[in-house]
């Protein structure tokens, strides 16, 4: 970059600092707004009134007590899966397999219901919790171990495992776990009352909401004030320095992928036990994929996750609501992709530096 000699002394220029820097929080909000505008433009091009679509989405997601509780119900899995992938992204492990880990957790928890039908609530719920967490975690290890041992790209493995988990789920609910009294409807029998998470009042919102918030709080504390959290932050900031400091990156990758999967598994367990009360093939409307956006909007910040999970839950709930206008619910995934585009473009904002032009400078 050559600077013309004799540039005025008051001249400033905008530079991109390659060392980077965190972009401010309002970039996320700006990205969401721009994505809504872009998607609105596409909806308009398709011949539908975009403002009406958005009004309908907003009304559906936040406009009534029913809509709001449904949005909160969807916040739970998004928050847990989003936290799971955020932990992995912190050390640059690209887990996009939360969907499969979620399914694994739901299947593990349902297994308890199927194979131990005689337990009371005090045995069965903890056992289901454990089963969900372990199944999700082990599904996560299927991604971590090939990565650590053979250098296999975790993006591909975790995504392939999503398809495998979904086909396994289909096998179970169409085959051995199918409800014999279900009129050929593919799904397990309904969970007995002892194996469902109690709900709040007359709504569908269950106690898992507070479990999810507690988990986020626990993570925020652990990352901020433990040695483990410090090491994670160090690996995330500079893996080479971390390795030189004697940190075992492999061990961290394995543990983090287990945790990441376990959180998604916990979400899966709570979804079958708290919301659907039976396992069927549509247990997840893509929570695991939306979790990626949740984590990214929040910039991996634990409390930001709560806000972004709530927002995206509203987007999904609102997306279901526009089906009456003849639009596919997939518009919400279109908006999600657009949000991600604007977010990463917005990362640039954090790297912009205003520099005064130096008249003596000949070139760099």
């Amino acid at each position, binding site marked *: 970059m050559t600077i013309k000699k004799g540039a005025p002394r008051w001249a400033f220029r905008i530079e991109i600092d390659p060392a980077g820097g965190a972009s401010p929080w309002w970039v996320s909000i700006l990205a969401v707004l721009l994505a809504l505008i872009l998607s609105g433009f596409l909806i308009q091009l398709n011949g539908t009134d975009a403002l009406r679509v958005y009004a309908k989405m907003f009304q559906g997601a936040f406009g009534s007590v029913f809509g709001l509780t449904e949005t909160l119900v969807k916040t739970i899995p998004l928050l847990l899966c989003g936290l799971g992938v955020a932990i992995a992204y912190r050390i640059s492990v690209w887990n996009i397999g939360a969907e499969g880990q979620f399914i694994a957790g739901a299947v593990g928890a349902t297994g308890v219901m199927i194979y131990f039908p005689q337990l009371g609530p005090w045995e069965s719920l903890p056992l289901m919790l454990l089963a969900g967490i372990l199944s999700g975690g082990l599904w996560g290890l299927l991604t971590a171990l090939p990565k650590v041992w*053979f250098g296999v790209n975790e993006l591909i493995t975790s995504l392939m495992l999503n398809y495998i988990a979904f086909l396994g789920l289909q096998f179970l609910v169409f085959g051995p776990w199918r409800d014999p009294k279900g009129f050929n409807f593919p799904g397990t029998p309904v969970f007995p009352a002892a194996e469902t998470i109690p709900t709040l009042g007359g709504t569908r919102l269950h106690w898992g909401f507070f479990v999810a918030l507690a988990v986020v709080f626990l993570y925020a504390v652990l990352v901020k004030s433990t040695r483990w959290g410090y090491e994670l932050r160090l690996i995330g900031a500079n893996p080479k320095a971390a390795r030189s400091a004697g940190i075992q990156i492999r061990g961290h990758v394995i543990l983090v992928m287990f945790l990441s999967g376990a959180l998604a598994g916990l979400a899966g367990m709570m979804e079958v036990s708290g919301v659907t009360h039976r396992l069927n093939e549509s247990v997840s409307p893509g929570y695991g994929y939306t979790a990626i956006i949740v984590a990214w909007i929040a910039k991996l910040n634990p409390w930001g996750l709560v806000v972004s999970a709530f927002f995206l839950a509203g987007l999904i709930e609102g997306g279901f609501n526009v089906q009456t206008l003849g639009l596919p619910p997939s518009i919400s995934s279109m908006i999600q992709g657009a949000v991600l585009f604007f977010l990463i473009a917005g990362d640039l904002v954090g790297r912009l530096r205003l520099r005064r032009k130096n008249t003596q400078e000949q070139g760099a």
Partner: protein
Amino acid sequence: MNLVSQLLNAAISAGTPLLFATLGGILIEKSGVIQLGAEGLMLMGAVTAALTYLAVPDLLLTLAAVFFVGALLGLLHALLTVTLRSNQVVSGLALTLFGTGLSAFLGKSIAGVPLPQAVPNVTLNFLSGVPLLGAVLGKLDLLTWISWFLVVFFQVVYTRTRWGLHLKAVGDNPATADVMGIRVQVYRYLCVAMGSSLIALGGADLLLVYSPNWIEGMTSGRGWIAVALIIFSQWNPVKALIGTYLFGALDTLGFRLQLAGSLVPPYFLKMIPYVITILVLIFVGWRSRNKASSAPQALGVPYIREQRQ
């Protein structure tokens, strides 16, 4: 003999979409940019092909539209990764999510509408007397022949031309390439745009030849399998040809076993390509454990002229 030629034909028709996508991915990655948006690009290619061909049944126009859409999305990826130096992994993920959603949205009105045969077959009458060859090569569709031409074309370009050598420099060591006077950013923009078009063409081939009606999410992970095939093929077009047909064969194997009344539940047969993908990557990783990777050395690293790498 009949069975062998049937299996080969099935492998070719299932493998060709993957071959286009893998060749496109190799082109992009050779320039040093990671492209994980293949799934979204293939879906956008497929839906563009369906919409265009149903509106104006003209193959050339359809392919041009697919190329245009692919290049446009590719330019978006290039803008983000090359110019704005955003995270290449996340940009690719965004492209996949956006493409999946947008294609479902655009294709809503034509979901399930069957398309007439759009791609003509190339009939080679002089082969009809030759046993196996006649049955396999005698009646292939035009796009398959184009994909083979592209394999040869890219192999020659990468290994025998000045342009290929420059591309290697851009992908391995952009700073040196820059000093040599090669315009790194231009190469990267061109490769990402052209490669993305080829990936979209893979989606169009899936729709026009392999299963001619649009279904939401119809690629079912093929974009990601193509990403795995890039690694499997070690960024080599000829190996990509072998790899994609191997996968095509496996893909159809499950289907054939199902038709033949296999006792294994169909869900497990459908898992085969995904399981194989993981196993293949493990094998590739294990085999090359002590070797230097043949990936472009600057893959995923944005080039900034003012900064030392």
